[in-house]
């Protein structure tokens, strides 16, 4: 009897500790979520709601008629149609070009595959402004290819004239999204069970029939997912179109910027933002649906399976053409950028770099342009802290939340992903420049915007890491006498340190390259690097152009080293 008694009380105590952990934690858990939610409320929902209100009531009075007029204007329709059309075209071309590459990556081993795979992440993380500058450096009227052709063929004008045409930014979109499609589709393709293809063959299907009836239908989710993602990116494309398209072309994003910043037509900008928000939500919802149903993931796209060696003439020539295409597409613009930053009208020069350090009276800046580098790094570090702290809190909550509430809050946290940076920036200037929350002269606005943009990415990095920690470890720590806070500090935090670092670097890189929101909220005296590059590119003259190239090269190196570090961290696993 006595024995059972002690046993009972021990069980009781364990039960008590576990209950204590649970109850105590559930009340604290809300505290964890409240900070991210407060941040989202102030810097995401508030500006967005203001945009909606301004669309319906431009002067503070309920005037839906104004909105109707704006929406039914020719200009509005033209912008909308163009945005759709260019996004669809970009998506189509990217798919056509990237699918053969995905096949090769999924099925074959070849020398240099790992290096190429690493190289392919470069465009994905490259700031849009840098990409635009790189394409100008390669194929613009003052670009390398044109100047070579002019010297070689003794021409008086540039033979390739795609400046300010659709072709120019379509090329940039393909450059941007090629590796994205390749990664998603190749990852999914390589994980399809090869037995399934062989089973079809054994049942009498020829290789072509097998592809048509088995492989293609099974690939559809991955292709659809990639296509929707590319469409979203091209639909919200801003920097590339602003810089490469010129005044003749305007997507919704570009038009919001022009209406707000150049014409001060805030009601029109608000009406455009409204439609942009709606379409984006719809597309993101579509993407999430495809992804969740078929386990296609944009965040984990490792290429698995057992790739074969390349055999035969057909396979070899397929491989070679694709590799040549990839290397040209990836390397040509970037090397052109690098070269062009050192080559002036009279050959090799360091003038572009050195002039970044001086403050010209005639220049668009009042301070040496190199200050932008320091600004960007400062903003980047602040944004990183914001995003990581919010992300850590939100992830800790989501990892321990049970039942139906977790997916709901997860979706809420992901919402900023579905909102274009330009709409966000526009929302900031119409809300955060005026009381009650006047941050007009505050340096905080840029890091806040960047932190918000990076926050969902950071959650996606950290959350899986925390979820992987077995609950039994926490329970063991509790029974060894740790309080819930100690458990979090001594179990969760150290075990999730790698994902947290990955998230931090991600946040920093996002901030370094962010242009859409920055173009609204940066102060003239404290520009970021992308904003500076854009200003250089919009000014005439060789020095401005060269400085844009030099600054882009610096930005490219900063982001590249960030991702090199990221690779180091994830490789050490």
């Amino acid at each position, binding site marked *: 009897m006595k024995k059972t008694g002690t046993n009972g009380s021990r069980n009781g105590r364990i039960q008590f500790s576990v209950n204590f952990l649970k109850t105590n934690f559930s009340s604290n858990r809300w505290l964890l979520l409240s900070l991210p939610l407060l941040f989202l409320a102030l810097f995401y929902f508030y500006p967005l709601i203001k945009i909606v209100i301004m669309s319906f009531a431009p002067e503070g009075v309920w005037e839906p008629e104004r909105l109707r007029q704006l929406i039914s204007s020719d200009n509005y329709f033209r912008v909308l149609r163009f945005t759709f059309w260019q996004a669809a075209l970009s998506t189509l071309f990217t798919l056509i070009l990237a699918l053969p590459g995905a096949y090769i990556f999924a099925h074959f081993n070849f020398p240099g595959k790992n290096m190429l795979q690493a190289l392919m992440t470069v465009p994905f993380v490259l700031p849009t402004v840098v990409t635009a500058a790189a394409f100008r450096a390669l194929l613009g009227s003052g670009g390398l290819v044109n100047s070579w052709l002019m010297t070689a063929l003794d021409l008086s004008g540039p033979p390739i004239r795609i400046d300010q045409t659709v072709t120019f930014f379509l090329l940039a979109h393909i450059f941007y999204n090629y590796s994205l499609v390749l990664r998603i589709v190749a990852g999914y393709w390589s994980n399809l069970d090869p037995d399934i293809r062989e089973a*079809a063959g*054994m049942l009498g299907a020829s290789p072509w029939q097998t592809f048509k009836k088995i492989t293609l239908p099974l690939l559809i989710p991955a292709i659809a997912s990639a296509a929707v993602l590319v469409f979203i990116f091209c639909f919200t494309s801003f920097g590339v179109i602003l810089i490469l398209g010129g005044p003749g072309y305007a997507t919704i994003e570009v038009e919001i910027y022009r209406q707000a910043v150049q014409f001060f037509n805030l009601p029109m900008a608000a009406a455009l933002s409204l439609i942009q928000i709606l379409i984006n939500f719809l597309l993101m919802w579509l993407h999430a649906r495809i992804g969740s149903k078929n386990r296609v993931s944009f965040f984990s796209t490792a290429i698995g399976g057992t790739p074969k060696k390349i055999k035969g003439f057909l396979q070899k020539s397929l491989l070679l053409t694709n590799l040549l295409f990839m290397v040209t597409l990836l390397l040509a613009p970037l090397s052109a950028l690098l070269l062009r930053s050192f080559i002036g009208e009279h050959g090799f020069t360091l003038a572009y770099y050195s002039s970044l350090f001086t403050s010209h009276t005639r220049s668009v800046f009042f301070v040496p342009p190199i200050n932008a580098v320091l600004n960007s790094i400062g903003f980047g570090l602040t944004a990183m802290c914001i995003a990581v702290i919010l992300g850590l809190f939100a992830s800790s909550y989501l990892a321990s939340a049970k039942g139906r509430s977790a997916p709901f809050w997860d979706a809420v946290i992901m919402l900023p992903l579905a909102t274009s940076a330009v709409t966000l920036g526009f929302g900031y200037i119409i809300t955060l420049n005026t009381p009650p929350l006047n941050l007009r002269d505050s340096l905080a606005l840029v890091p806040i915007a960047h932190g918000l943009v990076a926050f969902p990415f950071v959650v996606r990095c950290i959350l899986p890491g925390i979820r992987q920690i077995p609950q039994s470890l926490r329970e063991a720590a509790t029974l060894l006498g740790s309080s819930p806070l100690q458990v979090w500090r001594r179990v969760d935090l150290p075990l999730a340190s790698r994902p947290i670092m990955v998230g931090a670097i991600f946040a920093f890189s996002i901030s370094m390259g962010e242009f859409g929101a920055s173009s609204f909220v940066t102060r003239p005296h404290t520009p970021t690097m992308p904003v500076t590059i854009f200003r250089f590119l919009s000014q005439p003259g060789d020095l401005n152009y060269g400085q844009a190239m030099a600054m882009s090269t610096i930005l490219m190196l900063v982001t590249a080293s960030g991702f090199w570090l990221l690779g180091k961290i994830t490789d050490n696993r």
Partner: protein
Amino acid sequence: MTILNVKNLSSSYEGQPLLKEITFSLKKGEILCLLGPSGAGKTTLLRLLAGLEKEDGGIVTFGNLNIQTIPSHKRNFGMMFQEYALFPHKNVFENVSFGLEMKKSPLKARQEKVAEMLETVGLKGFAHRTIDELSGGERQRVALARSLAPEPQLLLLDEPLGSLDRTLRDRLSVEIRSILKALEVTALFVTHDQSEAFSVADKVAILYEGKLEQFDSPENIYRTPANTTVASFLGFKNIICGKMDNGDLFCSAIGPIYLPAECNDKQNCHLLIRPEAARIIRGEEIKEDEIALEGKVVKKQFQGATYKLQIEVGEQMLFFDLPIDPTPPGIGYPVDLAIRTSALIWLAS
């Protein structure tokens, strides 16, 4: 009538030999089990016959036709994969009818054939289920129905019961045999489980490290394993090494015994004693076709119908299955055994 002829078939991967000069033939309607430990080359052999891999050398003919240049989708062979490889985007009906579709058979005929096949495998009424809704055993049946529906000339089965639990395996292996026999299908069945092989097969081929060690009926393989490799793979533990003295005295760790000298290499003989061949004697004389051994019980394990006894004879441990009546002596007690000479087999090394 011999239908499948395999001669000197070899294969390798990155310089490592996988199959070494495999030669055998199979009659129409026979079921052959390829039995061997994992890595023995069973699946490679199956995939070579299917045309999914390329051989290094050798000849494979099927019905007097050399099939080595025919691509796998034109061979009209069926294959059942280890993880079934059912098409996840098609339902049960569409999976089973796929092979018929490839033969361009009309919808009506396909519907009839699919219904017939589903009934044969005991899945009547499952036609419109999706693959996700099926249990492991049901998937296995769908895979069987799918591979049988186009009436293949040869059915290849790659560990089709591998991922199922023991009870289901025992039941399904018997069922598969009766289905294959009823449809008179010639089949090759890969497994690493000997009880499965024995219950399914007409012929068993033992593969070990890419070599065909023995090819015979299940009974013959069990009664007379060809060599020490086969015997130890089949789980026989009582393999005794020794040499012959004066013609018929076998000298080994269990002590000298007089035996007819049927061992080839007199200096290096291997004698197998099957575990069920012993009986305990308590003072009585042994029979004419028996030999006597004496030892000490080291371990005694109750197994239901039998006791498994580990007995130390001379300097070697021997294992015997003995009936529960009369109860064998306990651990530490001496024991006298009589062994039937028919259960003594000379193995080639």
